[in-house]
């Protein structure tokens, strides 16, 4: 029985790992580290997700996407649980996902979130995701979503977004 449950949990995880982030559709909720696990407890299906930033409005949307993806595969009455600990960090974003971000035109997070200077974006040297130049400059600490800052490239003159180290 234990094995059956585990297999089922794995199958469900496989469905959910394809769910895309509503703000950055090139990444999945697994890529971002938002999807924290799936469990079946006494027949109840529980999906654990963790918020990126506290006020991120995408969380409600992600909850809906999760339920929708499950419904399409015939899983109803799932419960989506929001967990706070361990606190989400960009350190969980894989190398592959960072490359996907870059290809999409967003500079991926630089440095380790345990390093205060990386966290605050101090001496963060970014490569322009459009032309690859390192001659880039911070325009604003904040951007179109809670997780991004705005930069511009002095070489190709294009503005771009930076996914902040967090």
């Amino acid at each position: 029985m234990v094995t059956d449950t585990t297999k089922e949990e794995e199958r469900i995880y496989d469905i959910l790992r394809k769910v895309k982030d509503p703000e950055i559709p090139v990444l999945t909720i697994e890529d971002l580290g938002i999807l924290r696990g799936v469990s079946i407890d006494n027949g109840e299906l529980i999906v654990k997700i963790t918020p990126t930033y506290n006020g991120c409005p995408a969380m409600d949307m992600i909850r809906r996407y999760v339920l929708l993806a499950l419904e399409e595969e015939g899983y109803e009455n799932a419960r989506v649980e929001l967990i706070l600990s361990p606190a989400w960090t960009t350190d969980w974003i894989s190398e592959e996902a960072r490359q996907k971000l870059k290809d999409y035109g967003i500079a991926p997070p630089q440095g380790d979130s345990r390093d205060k200077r990386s966290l605050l974006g101090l001496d963060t040297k970014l490569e322009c995701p459009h032309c690859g130049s390192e001659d880039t400059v911070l325009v604003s600490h904040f951007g179109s979503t809670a997780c991004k800052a705005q930069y511009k490239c002095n070489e190709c003159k294009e503005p771009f977004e930076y996914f902040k180290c967090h």
Partner: protein
Amino acid sequence: MNQSLFKYSLHLGDNALIIGHRLSEWCGHGPVLEQDIALTNIALDFVGQARMWFQYAGEIEGKGRTEDDLAYLRLERDYTNCLLTEQTNGHWGKTILRQYLYDVYNYQLYEDLMESQDERIAAIAVKSIKEIAYHREFSTDWLYRLSGGTEESQQKMQEALDELYHYAGELVEHFSWEQELAQQGLIQRRENPGEAYFSIINHEMDRAGLDVPYDRPMQTGGRTGLHTEHMGFILTELQYMQRTYPGVEW
């Protein structure tokens, strides 16, 4: 129920909600687009933090009150946010100064809360501290930019400090019932939070070339529900939808 823990969570939620609401008033009014976006982003972080504290307070109370009930359906005297958080935005420099006074306190507070033996409090604090550090960086950056800017910008920052400094003392005010929580290890308080806080503030103001109005007595009252005249106006706007269309959802 742990009445003190309920009160404390509510207080943290109120502070975050009211300063978040004030910042959100800048939406569409920032001096330039980037700064408009910055303040609304910070507002969003605060409202997110408020939600976590209200959810927790509702659970502790155990009467079925939701985060929305606590945020929207209390009376003015039941809100225990500090007076500083409800002060008007004024000009850009005044908002920055209010934010700076608050961010320094907030960072110090959450650093302490991360050590709480209450798992939920510690989790909320660990989750929030990175956002708060970023806020503090932003307001400090602007504090220096404006105080070291033109004669006019410096004068405006001085006026803002004269207007707001006497509300800062309440941030580190200590209540006897909090002692209980500290003894239980639920809230961790450094030895002398007031001293730690003001040594930073006074030093930084000095560095920024601003004169600290030491002679003005500190104003308190917010934490016991006695607010400045601004609070009623905030609640009128904040609660409008819930009072007009009870139970309305986004």
